[in-house]
């Protein structure tokens, strides 16, 4: 059943491509049906399989027998969690792009191709297959941003595509070398993880593959594609980018880089600038990402950049958690992947669709006088709740996830845990700042905004930017699809936050599979 998440998405994309031109209504309905079917398959697969510590193989057939490549789809608890996340993000993304009229069928065809690739990565247990799906996801991203994006879209799209491709080039080098070093007859992840690669080899292969994947997870200082890409992307694409695509990178680290080359995380023979191992270095970079992302988010003028940098900050938690190599840290990292996927999707939905599509500006300074809290109460409330979740308030999923990462970090890298605390405080600050400026500044009044609406030109102390024609849209109420999309995501983060064992059960089981359990044993100091 789980495998059908992939097939349904690709078939849906092919079907959409064959639709007659200019059938936007039909296209988005078909896309929604396909996404819901995908989510259904994901949930169905999750419900029917037990949280066991074994790998559930779905399909395993020889693909290229001469090279030992198999078409091997399987799932453990971690895959299940992320597959469900992908399904949720896909449905919500389509609901938030209900207003796409321009080349709608192509939009949804690219969108579903991307989704299919993401499902594929989460379900592949053959390194070659995983890499194939990983690369399939690159090209749709480019077109989604370059065609339907805004603000320097071609630059953002190309930057994203090239960063992704460079990352995957690094991964390919590491995988090829590992494959040949292991004798060149299998790409099976579980079998490759059993191969005792020489320590010298792992010492260079681990960082290469780690960085290759982590580029996509927003590892500082290779994160710069993320804010520009998120900002340039159309709403649904930024929801997917932050929601699931960045998770591909973190997942690759957890699934490929760490189990295959565990010795690469051990201490070097000496220390360089006080850093003793790649593990320490990457944990440090994750911490820098947390603080740096939050600090930069604090001074952004563009509303979407705030959320874009917040993604860098939150993904820092994932990388830090992974590098702790403790049970808590790892499960926190996986939970954070899920949690951030939902929350970032929600926030991008509010900023990109609810606000930007109506006001046609994302400048916080311009949003301030609009008093959106009154004009768009639903958007305001959603952003408050999403913001609380993003800050890590108890009751939301982010709290449980970040707390676990912190505990793990405290066990492995106490100093970094302290620095991370600063990052969390900054996280509260930038969300409140954005919230206050965008929704509840209280400067503009109801009459003020309606004046502007009628006169159709900037009034009194407004800067002389022309946004007369844009203002009327602010009266649009939030449409039903948007409300449903937002509610799905909000409900998810709340349910997981209030009852974390729902997912932790799966994640813990997933960490006990042969592929990862060895990692925890080796990592235990």
């Amino acid at each position, binding site marked *: 059943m789980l495998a059908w998440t992939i097939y349904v998405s690709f078939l849906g994309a092919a079907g959409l*491509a064959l639709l007659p031109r200019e059938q936007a209504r039909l296209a988005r309905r078909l896309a929604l049906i396909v996404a819901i079917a995908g989510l259904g398959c994901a949930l169905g697969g999750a419900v029917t399989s037990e949280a066991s510590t074994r790998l559930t193989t779905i399909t395993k057939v020889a*693909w*290229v*027998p*001469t*090279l030992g490549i198999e078409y091997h789809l399987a799932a453990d608890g971690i895959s299940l969690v992320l597959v469900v996340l992908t399904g949720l993000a896909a449905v919500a993304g389509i609901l938030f792009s209900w207003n796409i009229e321009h080349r709608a069928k192509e939009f949804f065809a690219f969108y579903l191709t991307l989704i299919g690739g993401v499902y594929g990565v989460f379900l592949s247990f053959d390194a*070659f297959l995983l*890499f*194939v799906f990983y*690369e*399939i996801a*690159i*090209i749709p991203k*480019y*077109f989604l941003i*370059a*065609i339907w994006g805004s603000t320097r879209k*071609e630059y953002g799209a*190309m930057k994203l*595509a*090239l960063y992704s*491709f*460079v990352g*995957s*080039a690094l991964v*390919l*080098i590491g995988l*090829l*070398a590992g*494959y*040949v*070093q292991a004798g*060149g007859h299998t790409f099976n992840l579980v079998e490759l993880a059993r191969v005792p690669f020489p320590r010298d080899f792992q010492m260079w292969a681990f960082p290469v593959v780690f960085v290759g994947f982590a580029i996509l997870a927003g590892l500082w200082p290779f994160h710069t594609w993320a804010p520009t890409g998120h900002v340039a992307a159309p709403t649904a694409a930024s929801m997917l980018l932050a929601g699931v695509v960045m998770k591909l990178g973190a997942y690759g680290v957890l699934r490929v880089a760490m189990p295959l080359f565990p010795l690469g995380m051990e201490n070097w023979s000496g220390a360089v600038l006080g850093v003793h191992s790649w593990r320490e270095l990457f944990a440090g970079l994750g911490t820098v990402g947390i603080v740096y992302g939050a600090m930069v988010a604090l001074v952004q003028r563009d509303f979407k950049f705030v959320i874009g940098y917040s993604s860098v900050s939150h993904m820092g938690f994932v990388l830090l958690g992974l590098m702790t190599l403790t049970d808590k840290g790892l499960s926190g990292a996986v939970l954070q992947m899920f949690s951030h996927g939902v929350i970032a999707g929600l926030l991008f939905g509010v900023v990109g669709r609810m606000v930007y599509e109506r006001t046609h500006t994302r400048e916080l300074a311009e949003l301030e006088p609009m008093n959106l809290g009154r004009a768009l109460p639903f958007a305001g409330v959603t952003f408050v709740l999403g913001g609380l979740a993003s800050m890590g308030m108890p009751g939301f999923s982010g709290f449980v996830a970040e707390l676990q990462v912190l505990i793990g970090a405290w066990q492995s890298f106490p100093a970094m845990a302290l620095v991370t605390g600063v990052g969390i405080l900054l996280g509260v600050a930038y969300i409140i700042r954005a919230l206050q400026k965008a929704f509840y500044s209280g400067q503009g009044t109801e009459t003020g905004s309606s004046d502007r609406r009628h006169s159709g030109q900037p009034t009194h102390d407004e800067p002389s930017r022309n946004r007369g024609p844009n203002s009327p849209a602010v009266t649009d109420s939030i449409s039903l699809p948007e409300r449903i999309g937002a509610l799905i995501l909000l409900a998810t983060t709340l349910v997981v936050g209030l009852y974390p064992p729902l997912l932790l059960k799966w994640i813990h089981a997933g960490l006990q599979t042969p592929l990862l359990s060895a990692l925890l044993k080796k990592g235990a100091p």
Partner: protein
Amino acid sequence: MSLGVLPSLILPEAVLTVTAFLVLAADVLWLRRWPGLTRSRGAAVLASLGCVVAVACCAHLAAQGTQSYPPGVGMVVVDPLGSLVQQLLLGLALFTALVTAESRFTDHVGEYFALLLLATVGMMFLAGTENILMIFVSLELVSLSLYAMTAFNKREARSAEAALKYFLFGGMSAALLLFGFSLLYGVTGTLNLTQMPAKLRMTPLDPLAVVAMIMVLAGFGFKVAAVPFHLWAPDAYQGAPTPAAAFIASGSKVASFYALARVMWVGLQPAAGSGVWQALAQGWAPIVAILAVWSILLGNLAALAQSSVRRLLAYSAVAHAGYLLLAVLASPRDGFPCLVYYVATYAVTTLGAFAVVGMVQDQTGEENLGAFAGLRHRAPWLSFCLLVFLLSLAGIPPLAGFFGKFYVFSAALRAPGNLGLLWLVILAVGLSAVSLYYYLQVLKQVFVIEAAPGAPAVSASVLGQVYVGLLAAGVVLLGVAPALLLDRLSAALQRSGF
């Protein structure tokens, strides 16, 4: 073995040669009276039929196992692997004939198809011989036919310029190659590749043999457009009529690479040396490694700056020649299947890309990037096929180009020396990431940029849409199920005794 077996061994080539004359005769006698497009389509049908019959003959011959004529000299050799390559060449010739049927750049239809078929005959002999003299003669047949095909568009000065450049460089390279071969003959006393290894004095390597290897590599370097012997390629690709450019980029490349690999792996294997980092050993491997490095670097970087799509494809061809040279560095057992797989899929892909570019050029009169703006609206199917071709060239899965690269790189890593070629693989993988940029530049025009108002429509005939679609389907199919070709390759390789 008497002279009597010869006709049966060269049956496919004979069929093609007869077809070439038939096309000429038919054109003079009947087709001439028909209007332009019908005339070239008639000739194309005849040529394609010849190719199909020749494929059948090839398959029939290959089933009889390895044969060589005259025994011990190996002028004509029929072996399963060579036969597979010949069938591939015939397929490429067939599609090139279809491309020719759709373009109207000349009134001498019959001659053009005859030249196309003769070039194919040369390529087939090239793939089916172990004799260096025969290699040289068939290479000349290929080249002379292609020079003429390049110059065929008499309405365009550029066509003549391209042909002259191609001819001058090609003539030079032929001289070098012949010189190299003569030295090789002098050193080993035999023309047969299979007998050379035994007669090559190894320690120390004969200086004459070193000169011979350099000459041979230079000669083949021109043929496959490897840096620094690539200078003719951009002009020839840009100026030549579409079918000629497509055939130079596809068929000629397949045959030349196969012949190069045979010379190196069969004839000069003991003199390989090593291209391993910090352990470079005297032989041809370091030279090939250097050619590969420069081709990959220069091809990819120069392609970044191109505004003409044909020149862009030319530089990308240079880069791909570099990747293919990596396969030559692998051990023959790993190298043969991945070399043939890569060059075959590359040929199919580039043929398709040229077909689309040619159609756009025929209708808009231009082939710079701007001519492709908004092609998605003007020709949706062609745009989709172009997407497949270019992404395959960039190496995006699940298309054939990705698997080809993957296979070549893994074979290069497997070469003896404990990951010794890793430095080359890192370079190749890194620059193939760069290559995505220029392929996306073209695709950006096609899918992202809107066409300027009043841009001419691009309509392709049904036949055109069908064969471009078939090529694209081939690229997808070979990428999704590489085992289709790989299994046949490894079976043929085993039966050929590698």
